[in-house]
């Protein structure tokens, strides 16, 4: 195939490709925004589960803090 034909195909593919990538991700922006609203309306106040989750995280950090503190205490003797 002549290079010019290939390049023409390439330009078409570029336009098509960027078009689709942009369209796809733009629709995804809309979809994610809608999804977040749906999630907010589904879970209502929704604070409780979040708190629980962050609780678990606190525990985790706390554990690390405990261990670090223990080690520091031991070292500082």
């Amino acid at each position, binding site marked *: 195939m002549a*290079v010019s034909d*290939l*390049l023409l*195909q*390439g*330009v078409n*593919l*570029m336009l*098509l*490709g*960027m078009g*689709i*990538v*942009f*369209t*796809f*991700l*733009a*629709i*995804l*922006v809309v*979809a*994610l*925004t809608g*999804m*977040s609203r*749906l*999630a*907010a309306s*589904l*879970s209502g106040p*929704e604070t409780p*589960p*979040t708190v629980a*989750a962050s609780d678990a995280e606190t525990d985790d950090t706390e554990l690390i803090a405990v261990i670090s503190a223990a080690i520091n205490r031991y070292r500082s003797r």
Partner: protein
Amino acid sequence: MSGFDALWQSMGIANMEWGQVLMMAVGCVLIYLAIHKKFEPLLLLPIGFGAILSNIPVAEISGPDGLLGMIYHVGVETGIFPLLIFMGVGALTDFGALIAMPSTLLLGAAAQFGIFATLLGALALNMVPGFDFSLSDASAIAIIGGADGPTAIFLASRLAPDLLGAIAVAAYSYMALVPIIQPPIMRALTTEKERSVKMQQLRHVSKLEKVLFPFTVLLLCILFLPSAAPLIGMLMFGNLLRESGVVERLSRAAQNEIINIVTIFLGLAVGSKLSAEKFLSIETLGILGLGALAFCIGTATGLLMAKIMHRVTGGKINPLIGAAGVSAVPMAARVVNKVGLESDHHNFLLMHAMGPNVAGVIGSAVAAGVLLAVVGG
């Protein structure tokens, strides 16, 4: 005594070809970069070692009955290894920053222009004597601009297996070079004032949103681009394992055992494609050049889109985060953070850059889907 003769004939020095020596040197360079410069060592070290092993004369380790040949056949030709890596990446990635600010997806989209510009560049290179890239070849090369290793390997294994070695090496090398390639472009395309923009703290993202996210992305993929479904499907499966909170065992397996084991084998298998006749050609130079181009263009278009968003939002967006849209997670986001700190020592952009950064992963998987659908169909 025939034993001696057979033995001499079986020695490496009696059978060594120049190309093999050079390819082993290439393997050593990759390993050097991996160890000394910390260039994506998880992939480049096994790739480099695979290159050495597969170029050992007589041993035929990358032949159909050799270890690396069999691994390649089972894991790369089938596409299984890159897909499992994608599952692991999904299980390792927190898409929270993207969910909190979905508009950053547009940055991930813009940065994929690097891919398609490179496609054109590869085809244009055919005007130089010695180059003969088909549309498939050019597509596989272009995906280097996606700055995403497993996507590049997946697409190359489907569209241009002969170029797979060079493409994978280029993709991972430039991903490692992001801290060197991107900052000058970032400084050139943005003003000091733009770089100093402080962004609003990201809102909290609920667990439910994180669970619904993989389904939302997958739904669009199913409706509009099923050719990207293997990649995006496994990415989202891994992410669901992570976010569902009920399959801790499986999430850990995807994040550790599976991805680690597969990385070793994938690296060795990719290395087995670094043979002299395939790699030591003018085309490899072209691929390396085009790859650099792809990264630069992707960075630039990401930045330009971020500048547009900066204007549209009345200055709420720091244009630097556009550079993270090329993906290269999390390196590109860290580079954004670092360049941002140069302008304002208290401006931490890391979390804001993570949005376009992971958007870039989705963006390049979408681009790969388009290329597969049009070129690979």
